[in-house]
């Protein structure tokens, strides 16, 4: 089963990379962008076939390794 995870920076954490990307987009003529926030995307292929169990395991992975909860949020987006 494949599960996807998106990690994003929390709202009040400064994202200098996102800022620079925003500036670059501005310079390229994409002038209607309000803000850019950069994050991370993971695809986890697990042997677990039970969707609930697999999601629980991935959630544990997020808490223990994939995300740093001081600055990041995680979102498990699908299981297929």
């Amino acid at each position, binding site marked *: 089963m494949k599960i996807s995870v998106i990690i994003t920076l929390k709202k009040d954490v400064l994202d200098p*990379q996102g800022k620079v990307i925003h500036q670059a987009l501005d310079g390229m003529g994409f002038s209607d962008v309000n803000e850019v926030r950069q994050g991370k995307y993971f695809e986890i292929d697990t042997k677990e076939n039970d969707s609930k169990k697999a999601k629980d395991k991935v959630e544990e992975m997020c808490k223990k390794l994939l995300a*740093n909860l*001081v600055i990041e949020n995680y979102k498990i987006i699908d299981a297929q």
Partner: protein
Amino acid sequence: MKSAVITFPGSNCDRDMDVALKKFGFKNKMVWHQDVELPKSDLVVLPGGFSYGDYLRCGSMASKSTIMQSVINFANSGGMVMGICNGFQILVETGLVPGVLLRNKYLEFICKNVFVKINNKNNGYFKNISNDVLELHIAHNEGNYFCTNDQLKEIEDNAQVAINYCDPNGKIEEPFNPNGSIKNIAGIFNKKKNVLGMMPHPERMIDSSLSGEDGSYFFKNLINNLK
């Protein structure tokens, strides 16, 4: 006094630290990250470098390596554990010290000498040191110290700020903040002050013919405090 320096894949200041510790009288042992047990030590050092290529988040992979459980147990039982640069990043990932280290504010890798003011001398690391300000070297891409407002309050209430970036006279102001760290924080303790994480490299400042000698004051004082 006995010390141990942990080498992770990608550590590159481990041997500098070994040289520095031996120069000031420590009997140092190098410990591989896959080892299970720490040798009997008075001080454990997590050195600088780029452990695991800084994959995922700086220090995150190293914080889960085999030896770290022993390091965490040693720290929790009151042992002195010091993390320099990447070692500091590893410490925050283990949760032994609060906060995180983000990408530098202006997205540059910073490699230069800075001045830091010692904020708290009531601990094993800085007790009895006569200097208030040290000139040390920094070399990092992710040294921008960040924590939540609640954490900051707790850190300040417990006097956990070890050193702040400052000018040569010890003035702590924004222009002397190289990387965007909250309150110019360059180093921080755990609550009990036996764990110290800091971005500057004292081991790079132990020889006047190379870079400077302010790191010598730190190490000389440290070994005397441990005796």
